[in-house]
């Protein structure tokens, strides 16, 4: 009798241990952004998470644990406790060849670095806003750390609206007398001097090259806004000077356009640098150009996520997991990328209204990957200097911010053998 009782208890506990938590990511979800935080929290506490690509908006599945359940409740994340049998049914549904779905196992909480200057304010940057809101830890790194090779310690690096061309965001015309601009110049010049560079532009080029090495060695880089095009411009301008005297004290190389080396870029080619030192634009990569942004109509500005085969192209599928396919557009210093200037090897993940208007791209370099996302703040159509930070408590289900968080979880995925 005792033996039977023990067996029954064992069976019961086995059944219990099979209980799962399903975090649906479709329109039913109460807080999509914090749901990513729960996945990260689970991974950080040593438990695996299964990312159910294209199943109910890209849901998360994990073993039932009362602490995870409580954390979901505390963070306001909708979850469904399901039985082992129900979970098996879901997995079976996903596995069917006719369903464009797949399961990706997430195994390790990625270590995240955000490239920001010392005077950085979290509300300047959509990614740090998203990370803080989702309660995901991150470290800050800047030029010296990058040049010292600290990036090796991180799985994921984020660049926001930093200017890798050394032109301080090309804010000279309107803001050169403001305290924050002066401080920015001083900090960058001091950093350049500290690292043995005569000019900030040279320092930034070296930083861009170090980041490129980090990607080549298997790092994941995610850039937004002007960090996207300025990063590639800095790589292309390795052997020329594109900065006017207002930025580095001497005139640019008059022949810089011809001297650009596009082969060194990650994502763009054949672009033309904007020569006007007072124009708030770096090149013709940006769509629409900043001086045309005033004519943009927020009500008509949308971009569409492309659909990929979950079973054969899991990476782009992960990056485009969302509860909607059409998202509201948003501007930035670099809002979107001109399609004709994007390298053929780069995957387009989302496209805007126009034929040339690409919002979201992804590519491989060496053993790592990079993702570029145009625009500054997905929930503030036109974010200006001095604007108040976006309160994500008012945008818990923001599809635009979801795309950012897809990128954060993506390095946690266990690599599967390629099917193609």
């Amino acid at each position, binding site marked *: 009798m005792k033996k039977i009782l023990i067996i029954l208890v064992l069976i019961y506990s086995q059944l219990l241990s099979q209980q799962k938590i399903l975090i649906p990511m479709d329109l039913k979800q109460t807080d999509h952004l914090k749901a990513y935080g729960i996945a990260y929290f689970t991974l950080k506490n040593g438990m695996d998470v299964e990312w159910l690509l294209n199943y109910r908006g890209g849901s998360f599945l994990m073993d039932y644990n009362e602490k995870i359940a409580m*954390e979901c409740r505390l963070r306001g994340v909708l979850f469904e406790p399901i039985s082992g049998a129900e979970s098996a049914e879901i997995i079976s549904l996903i596995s069917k060849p006719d369903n464009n779905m797949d399961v990706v196992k997430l195994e390790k909480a990625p270590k995240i670095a955000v490239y920001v200057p010392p005077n950085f304010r979290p509300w300047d940057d959509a990614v740090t806003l998203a990370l803080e809101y989702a309660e995901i830890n991150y470290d800050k790194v800047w030029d010296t750390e990058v040049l010292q090779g600290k990036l090796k310690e991180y799985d994921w690096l984020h660049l926001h609206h930093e200017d890798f061309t050394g032109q301080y965001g090309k804010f000279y015309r309107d803001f050169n007398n403001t305290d924050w601009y002066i401080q920015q110049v*001083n900090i960058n010049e001091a950093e350049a001097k500290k690292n043995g560079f005569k000019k900030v532009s040279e320092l930034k080029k070296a930083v861009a090259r170090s980041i490129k090495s980090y990607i080549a060695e298997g790092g994941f880089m995610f850039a937004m806004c002007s960090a996207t095009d300025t990063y590639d411009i800095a790589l292309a301008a390795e052997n020329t000077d594109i900065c006017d005297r207002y930025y580095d004290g001497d005139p640019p190389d*008059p022949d810089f356009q011809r001297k650009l080396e596009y082969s060194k870029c990650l994502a763009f080619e054949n672009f033309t640098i904007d020569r006007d030192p007072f124009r708030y634009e770096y090149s013709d990569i940006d769509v629409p150009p900043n001086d045309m942004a005033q004519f943009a109509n927020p009500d008509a500005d949308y971009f569409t996520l492309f659909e990929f085969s979950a079973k054969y192209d899991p990476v782009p599928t992960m990056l485009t997991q969302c509860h909607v396919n059409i998202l509201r557009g948003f501007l930035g210093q670099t809002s979107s990328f001109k399609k004709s200037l994007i390298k053929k090897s780069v995957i387009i993940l989302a496209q805007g209204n126009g034929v040339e208007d690409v919002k979201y791209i992804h590519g491989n370099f060496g053993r790592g990957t990079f993702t570029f996302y145009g625009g500054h703040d997905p929930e503030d159509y036109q974010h200006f200097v001095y604007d108040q930070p976006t309160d994500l408590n008012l945008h818990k289900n923001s599809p635009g911010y979801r795309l950012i968080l897809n990128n954060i979880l993506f390095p946690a995925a266990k690599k599967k053998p390629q099917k193609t």
Partner: protein
Amino acid sequence: MKRFTLLLFISLFYNLWLFSQDQNDLSLFQLAQQYERAGEIEQAEKIYQKLYEKNPDYFEFYDSYRKILEYSKKYENATKIILKWLEKRPSDFNQIVNLAIIKFRLGEENLAREKIQEAIKIANNNINVYRVIAASLLEARYYDEALKIYYQARSIDKNAFIIEIAYILVFREKYEDAMLEYLKLLDNNNNNNNQFGYLQSLLINHINNKNFLDIAINVTKNKLSENRNNLSYYYLLSWLYNEQKNYKDSFEMYLEIERRKKSNGYEIFNFAENAYRDKSYDIAFKAYQYIIDNFKNSGVYLLARLGYARVSEELVNTLFNDSLDNNKLHTEIISQYSRIIKIYEDFLKEFPNNQYSSEVEYRIGDIFFKRFDDLDKASTYFNNVLKKYYLQNYSVNSLIKLAEIAFQKNNLNETYSKYNEILNHQNASNDQKEYAKFKVAELLYFEGKYDSSIKVLNEITSNLSSDYTNDALILINFIQNNQSNKLLTVFSEAEKNESQKKLPEALELFKSIVESGNSSLSEDAFFKIISIQRKLKLFTEALKTANKFINNYPESPLIDKMMFQCAQIYYKDLNDVKNALTYYEKILVEYPNSIYINEVRKIVREIKGDINF
């Protein structure tokens, strides 16, 4: 004649040829400029070169060619043409400066500096030459070199370029040196308020930077110790201390200003008023006290006495605002507010019937009403305001208080009368009139005159900008939903008692509604009972009432609200975290869509901290 005609023709043709040449050059020049603007530097350079070679003495051609050579970093060629230009015009110091900048760019710094000195010498040490040279250096971002030139100019005028130098020093984050420069504006303008105001307008751009502010204070302090007679330093330091929220040291500065300026208390009074406006009551108190003690014959003495009384009351308010219900403090409260009343009454005795008397009488009345609950004494003071100062500022406020007192005394006719008087008072603001109207409607509701109440409430809702529109809509909605319920009269009577602070009577009436069985008003009555029981500190009773509700109305849409009440009673009133947590977690699990969920999450996180495995 023939010869003359021939000469005329030749001259005409020659001039036409010259003109056509000039026109051609001008067109070419414009074309080069267009190329330059379009970024086609090579094309532009070729044309400029051609034009320059054709006419090297024409400044526009020379200068455009020089600029494009510099832009193209062809520094050797640029140097050549500058030197050629200077051969004929050795005193053109602008070109010497251009040459110097090229030398800087080529890293030949000593040579560059020599050239600059040459330019200065040529221009006979004219102060404006320094300005032009420094501006050129600044444009080329040679800040430190520009700084040297500005400093050099001081051999001519020791106070030259103060603002320019200070600006560069701030830009280079050399705040101490920058502040020393700025202070030179005050050095030679002892007690000049205009100069102080100008300096303030310059410093306002920097003092948001905490580092700058701290350094600015230290530098000014040092300067002051060197020259104790310059009043501008005291004003500046006081202002900087204020910006740092260091009112104590700021006051010390004003004491010194007063000692030196002998303004008969006016300077201290200005400081006290500013401190009072900034709600720095402690320091404002000291400042008023100082005037009272030292300047009895001053023109600001009366105002200082009034300020002293006001600030004394504010200080007592900050002591007791959060603990008015605490019986232990009751004696202390009475003692402190009695002291304030004495201060006000002394003011009235010493300065009878002046323009501030109405405010003082009102303030005394308010203390009797709010702090001592002495309705009769309060009425005396409020009525005094009406009798003596009907057309002054505090008469409408006094009417509002008298209406509230009449209501407390259950003298409803008097209450109506006072509110109606406000509606017709010529000094009443629109906001005060809307308030009076809402109170009339509420009174009609308390009396069970629901239709009349709704009529007045509808008038309020027609004004969408009124602060009372929402309250009016809520009351209309409540009345209309329950008008058919016979118990509504009991409910409104109970609410009237509650408003009149007759809590036991109100409690009994609300209980009678609950006991009469299920009705649309029962659920509201439960919440009213709990609220009163908490006010009466009957916490166990309140928990019983809440549990009764949870058992009786398990399907009520207000069940999460009641659970939240239970949790709050345990957490806030009984300090029983364990039981509170049980209720909070129950809300989290069972009512994830509750309107209290965000608050619950915050409290649970506060209690439990971060969860770790």
